[in-house]
Each structure stands twice: as C-alpha cells, then as structure tokens.
C-alpha cells in the first residue's frame, strides 16, 4: 500500500511486520500486527479479534427476564456490568421503573466493581509492564522502606516487612517456577524503575490481590450467596430489614456495617497504595505521556453512569456525564442517543460478516450477525494458520462501531475527558492534581500514561462514591422505604406483543450497551456493542482506523522481539476479548507468541 493518510495519521506498511498473538490451543482472542520502520518505530497497526461469537446464539427465544443470567456468564470479569445492562434494556423495553433503593444498590454494586476491577487491572495486568519483578530481588529493603514512607502513610512500610516479602519472592523465583511472573520481559532496557521502586510495587501487587477479596464481599452480600451476583428485572433481588435479627435472606444491619467497614478500607487502600504507586511509577515513564494517545485527543465517547435519581438516565442525574467529543473540540460536547438510527452504527467492511450494502453501517436494532470468513489476497499463510492478515480486506471478527460515522475511544479516559469538558469539578480537580504532581501539560492526558492515570483516579473516585451511595442507602432505609423491587410488570401477560429497549452501562473498561427486541414475551433479537468493540475496532468503509490501531502508531520500540511497548498501550485500554475459556494442561504452554516477519 505504501502510505495511507487517515485521521491525521500516516500508515506505512513497508517495514518489518511483527505479530503479537496470544495463542491458546483452544481459540484465539486479540491479535495485533504492526509494521516497524528501520528505527523500530511503529508505522502501521492492525487490531483483530480472532474469535467468533454471537450472543444471538444463546439468547434468541429465551425469557427476557433471564437474559441477565446468560450474559453474566459471557466472561468472568464483566459479570455485573453485562447483567446490569441487560436488566436495564428489558426495563426500558417494558417501561418498568425501579425503586429508589434498587437504584442506590445498583450504583453501589457498580462502584464496587469499578474499585475492584481497576485495582486488579492495574496491579495484576498492567503494573508488570512497567515494574520489573526480577529487579525487585536486588532491592535494598531499607531504601524501599524509605521510598515507601516518602510517598504514602501506608502502614506496611518497615524494612523488615519488605525484606520478608523479598525473601518470599526469592524463594518463589528460586524454586525454578516463575509462576505468575513467567513470560515477562524481565531485564529489558524498557524497564526503568530502580530496584527499590520495583520491590515496593511488587509488594503492593501481592497486597492488592489479597485485598481485592474484601471488596468482592460487597457484591456477594447484595447479590446473594453466590459468587455470581443475582440480578432482577424491576429492581434488586435482595430484601433489607434493619431490625432483622437473623431471619433468612434479608440483609440486616450487621451486614450493612460490614459493608461500611469494607468501604473505609477500600478508600484507604486505593488512596494510600494505588494512587501513590501510580504517581511514583509514572514519574519514571514521563515519555509515555507523549506516546499512545491514538484517538483520545480527537474522539471520545461516554454513555454516562451512576444515575443519582432513580430511572433518570439523563445528564441531570448522571454523576459521570454522557457525551461525545469530536476532533478534540472540548467546547462542543455532543449528546448521545442510543435509539437514534443515525448515531451508533456498525460497519462490517473489514469484518468477517455480511450485511448487504457494506458501504453503510447498521444501527444495532437493525443489526445483522451473518458470519462470512474470507481472507484478502495479501494474506500470508492459510485459512486456519494465518501468518499475516491483509487489512485492506476483511480481517477481524470484531465489527467496526462508529458514532455518526466516527471511530471513538471509550473507557476511563474517555469518561474523564467528557466529564472535564462538561465542567465536572471533582474530575477536574483530580486531573489537575496529577498534571501538577507529574509536571506535565494537559496534552499529557491523551496518551498511554494519561489513560492509565485516568483509570487510577476513577478508581479513587468510585471508592469515595461507594461511601456516598452507602450513606444514601442508610438514609433512605431509615426514612422507612424498604422497597427493593417493582414487580407490577413481572408477569408476561402484562407485556405488549412487541417491545424494544436499550440498556447502557459504563463498564469499568468503557461504554457498553445492549439492544433487545421482545416479541410474544420472548427475546426476538439481542445485540451487544461492548467497550472492546469500540476500542479494538478494525477499519471501516472509509478506511478509518480504530482506537487501538491509532494508539500504537509512532510508538518507538526498544526491541521488536520483546513487544513491551505494544502491551503497555493495549493494556492501558483494559482489553476484554479473552473471556471465557480456561483449560488446564500438563505443561505451562506459551500463550503469547511473537513473530517477526
């Protein structure tokens, strides 16, 4: 192709091609192909989902009141957000209003999910792209203690404590099994933290994974006995009795007090560990404030979340506002209407589906999921073992969603940019604090570092909002309102013959929506557009690239054989394709293959 100009970027596929493919022997997930120039700078990027699924295959013909239970099983992390989106879609279709308590509890469940998900994402997934675990073994525990005490009042900070953790790590690594730390690019020149910072962050990695189990307990209390929370069309499936002294099922004051305690410790952990770590690590990687911005400085979108007023999903009610920003124009925030046929549309020009005239996009209510697996003439390899994709043709199982024809980035950064543009005070204060602490300009937000920082800030925001919603709940209960569900329209005999509705949710990783059509009391069609569809989107009919593809462009790599830089940027989006399959095998198989061609 030589070079192509699009959206202010120049794509050049003439250099060496590098493929990063998280191969499992079961099925593929997300695969990235890039071309690098002679200086190892990325000049072309291709993002592809390598697995086909459709929710239609499980939901068609089922009872819409059960849809949440199925969508909750799509994957193990997005459980709550898919379930919430589903009950909202069915409630919208059938005109069901939920009680105030149900709204507060749903907000509390979702802020809890934000806190846990962002925390786990940072430490378990993203931190090790920046933190060298093996280097931590060489740290001086005394200096680590000094570093810790200089950045945070967190209680676990003695030299003895860090020495003990270091010994545990040494034993673990020395036993020959790197275990959870296998497959890292340890020792790469791309890692820049001193050993003490590495030991501090690795210690917090262990503490965070241990601590997150406390946060999860809130989901379990409100969601019922099960680790998969229960949901309910019309409200929440738990009853509450403040005076209860042990009756079966109802949530009582003892459990509410336990939740309150967990909220306090969640706020403490995030503000004393996560945020100081984030800032400390970021200060060594400030060049990443200029890398990986992709579309974030141009087009971002948020559906809005945390309705403060039950059943009101307008910006008057939303604590994080909805909106779309185009071309980086923060002064004009556009409103989002998921029902408008000309706003959210999906293209399949470069996706392995057929949908009639492929120069046009389809609104999800008119969505078609008709698989059509064909490879372009430039493909290398075979149909079942693709070496290089041909991105000029169809190349992904992910469709290309667009807002009024524009690719947009979604996620914490998008939410924060929209909130900032809408003049939200709390968000603006948080962003200013980070910019000032790191001494970087406002443009630094539109980067891999900015995306990572926004997630941390939002994690703290969510933890404090857990307290806000908890207090709201107690106040409302004390006023004598115990209603948690509205079952007026529970019986299908009360429903119209045909109905359709939308449900949206800002999942931790970005804007999520479900479109449901109900016919004769059963699901007639169900379409989901998930956050990763927006971010990992392939090209569209106009050749516009998606957010991942844009974010990888112009990234300098230290060593293309060790694609840490690609992982850093892709991980900063919190990708969500590899949902469900895990099969044990006798030998630790290699999951990420890197091929240079």
């Amino acid at each position: 192709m030589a070079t192509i100009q699009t959206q202010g970027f120049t794509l050049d596929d003439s250099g060496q091609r590098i493929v990063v493919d998280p191969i499992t022997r079961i099925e593929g997930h997300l695969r990235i192909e890039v071309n690098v120039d002679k200086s190892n700078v990325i000049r072309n990027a291709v993002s592809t989902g390598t697995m086909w699924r459709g929710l239609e295959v499980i939901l068609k013909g089922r009872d819409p009141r059960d849809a949440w239970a199925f969508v909750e099983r799509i994957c193990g992390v997005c459980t709550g957000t898919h379930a919430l989106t589903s009950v909202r879609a069915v409630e919208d279709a059938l005109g069901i209003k939920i009680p105030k308590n149900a709204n507060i509890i749903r907000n509390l469940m979702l802020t809890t999910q934000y806190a846990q998900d962002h925390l786990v994402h940072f430490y378990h997934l993203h931190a090790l792209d920046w933190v060298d675990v093996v280097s931590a073994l060489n740290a001086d525990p005394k200096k680590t203690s000094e570093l810790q005490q200089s950045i945070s009042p967190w209680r676990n900070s003695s030299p003895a404590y860090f020495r003990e953790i270091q010994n545990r790590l040494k034993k673990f690594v020395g036993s020959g099994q790197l275990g959870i730390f296998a497959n890292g690019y340890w020792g790469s020149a791309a890692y820049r933290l001193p050993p003490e910072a590495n030991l501090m962050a690795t210690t917090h990695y262990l503490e965070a994974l241990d601590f997150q189990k406390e946060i999860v307990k809130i989901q379990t209390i409100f969601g019922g006995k099960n680790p998969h929370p229960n949901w309910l069309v019309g409200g929440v499936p738990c009853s509450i009795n403040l005076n209860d002294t042990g009756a079966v099922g109802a949530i009582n004051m003892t459990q509410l007090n336990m939740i309150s305690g967990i909220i306090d410790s969640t706020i403490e952990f995030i503000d004393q560990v996560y945020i100081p770590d984030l800032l400390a690590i970021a200060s060594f990687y400030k060049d990443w404030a200029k890398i990986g911005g992709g579309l974030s400085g141009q087009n971002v979108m948020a559906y809005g979340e945390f309705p403060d007023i039950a059943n009101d999903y307008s910006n008057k009610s939303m604590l994080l506002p909805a909106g779309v920003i185009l071309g980086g124009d923060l002064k004009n925030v556009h409103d989002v209407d998921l029902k408008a046929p000309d706003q959210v549309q999906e293209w399949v020009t470069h996706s392995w589906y057929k949908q009639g005239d492929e120069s046009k996009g389809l609104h999800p209510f008119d969505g078609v999921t008709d698989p059509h697996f064909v490879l372009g003439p430039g493909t290398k390899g075979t149909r079942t073992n693709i070496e290089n994709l041909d991105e000029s043709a169809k190349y992904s199982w992910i469709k290309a969603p667009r807002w009024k024809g524009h690719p947009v980035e979604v996620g914490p950064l998008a939410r924060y940019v929209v909130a900032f543009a809408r003049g939200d005070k709390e968000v603006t204060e948080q962003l200013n604090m980070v910019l000032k602490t790191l001494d970087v300009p406002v443009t630094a937000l539109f980067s891999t570092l900015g995306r990572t920082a926004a997630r941390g800030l939002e994690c703290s925001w969510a933890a404090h909002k857990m307290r806000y919603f908890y207090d709201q709940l107690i106040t409302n209960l004390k006023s004598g309102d115990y209603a948690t569900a509205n079952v007026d329209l529970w019986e299908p005999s009360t429903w119209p013959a045909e109905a359709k509705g939308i449900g949206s949710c800002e999942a931790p990783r970005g804007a999520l929506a479900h479109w449901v059509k109900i016919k004769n009391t059963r699901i007639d069609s169900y379409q989901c557009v998930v956050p990763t569809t927006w971010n990992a989107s392939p090209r569209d009919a106009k050749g516009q690239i998606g957010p991942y593809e844009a974010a990888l462009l112009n990234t300098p790599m230290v060593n293309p054989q060790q694609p840490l830089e690609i992982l850093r940027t892709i991980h900063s989006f919190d990708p969500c394709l590899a949902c469900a399959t895990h099969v044990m095998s006798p030998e630790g198989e290699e999951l990420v293959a890197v091929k240079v061609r």
Partner: protein
Amino acid sequence: MSARCEVLVLGIGNLLWADEGFGVRAVEALHQACVFPTGVRLLDGGTLGLALYDDLTSARRILVFDAIDFALPPGTLRVLRDAEVPAWGRTKLSPHQVGFNDLLAIAQLNGRAPDAIVAIGVQPVELNDFGGSLRDAVRTRIPEAVALATEQLAAWGFPGAPRAPGAVCEPLNAHALALAAYEAERPSDRDALRSGDARVLERALGQRG
C-alpha cells in the same frame, strides 16, 4: 464467606461453551445427588478468576471439577492431587485470563494455599460451540465424577447422604442456567446462525463426516 470452610467443592468453567461447562455441571450433579455435613461448601465458580480468591483461600481443602486438557481421548476422566494440580501462571492480556492456576499461584505466594487439593478433570470433546451443552462422551462421565468426589469427601471425613429421589433442592445458580432449562430453550442452529469461523466449521464438519 470468610469463615474457614473445611472443604470447598468448586465447579469451574464456562457453561456457555459446551464441554467447558463440565465443572459447573458436575458440581450441580453432586449437589443434586447428596447432602453434605456442615463444613462442606459447593460452589459454581464459573470463570470468575480473582473473585473466587476469598472462597479459595478460606478453604482448608479444595475439590475442583474442571475441563482438563491432557491430550487424552475425549471424555477421559483424570484425578490430580496436590502438586499434580498445576499452579503456574501465564502472561495475561486480560484479567479474564486469570484462571484457577493463577489463583493457586497467588494464594501460594501470599501463604494462603489450601492444605490439600484434588482436581477431577475431564478431557473435553468440544469447546467451540457457544451456547452449546455437554457432548455425550463428557456428559456420561458425570456420574463417575460425582462418585469420585463423594469418595474423596468421605475420605476427608465428610460423607454425603443421598437425597431422596425427586427431593427438591435449590439450584446452585440461576434457575435459567440449570442444565435442563439451558438445553431445552436453546435456539435452533438456523435461528441462532450458529456457524462462523472456518476453523470451527471445518472441525465440526470433520466430526460429522
């Protein structure tokens, strides 16, 4: 929740992915077959990953049902004990890939590993059938898996009492996901457009042919 439980019986896997549902279906079957003494907890763990960390680390012993790939003939059952249960980790693209193995590894590093662990695994026939259910070769092994589990639980000092035939028992998970409802209401291949990736199609055709 946090109270130390004596034995956690965990079914893991994704019930939407054909034989990946083995673990969940096996723990359901065990639950329907027997009542166990206090101290034994049966759980449908799905693919929850880190959300199961509290359950895992609160248990003294763990019995886990799962689909296990040992390159054995499909439908083969295999029992693994303690060190045989792999606790390695993997490079992750997403926290969704936090599997049971990662959980075990993290629990070990944090000094919270269980005293004993037994895995009852089956070699799957088919995973790539989204919305599908167990294949016969796997389904027919469930009674044996349940018997192996009951034996193990008895050996640990927790014998199960068989439920009376036809006795009503609360499902472990949402009613709509119970095996019978899940299978009965599945849309047809044509309605659901259950085709797609050539790699899936070729394999499916190969099996039929």
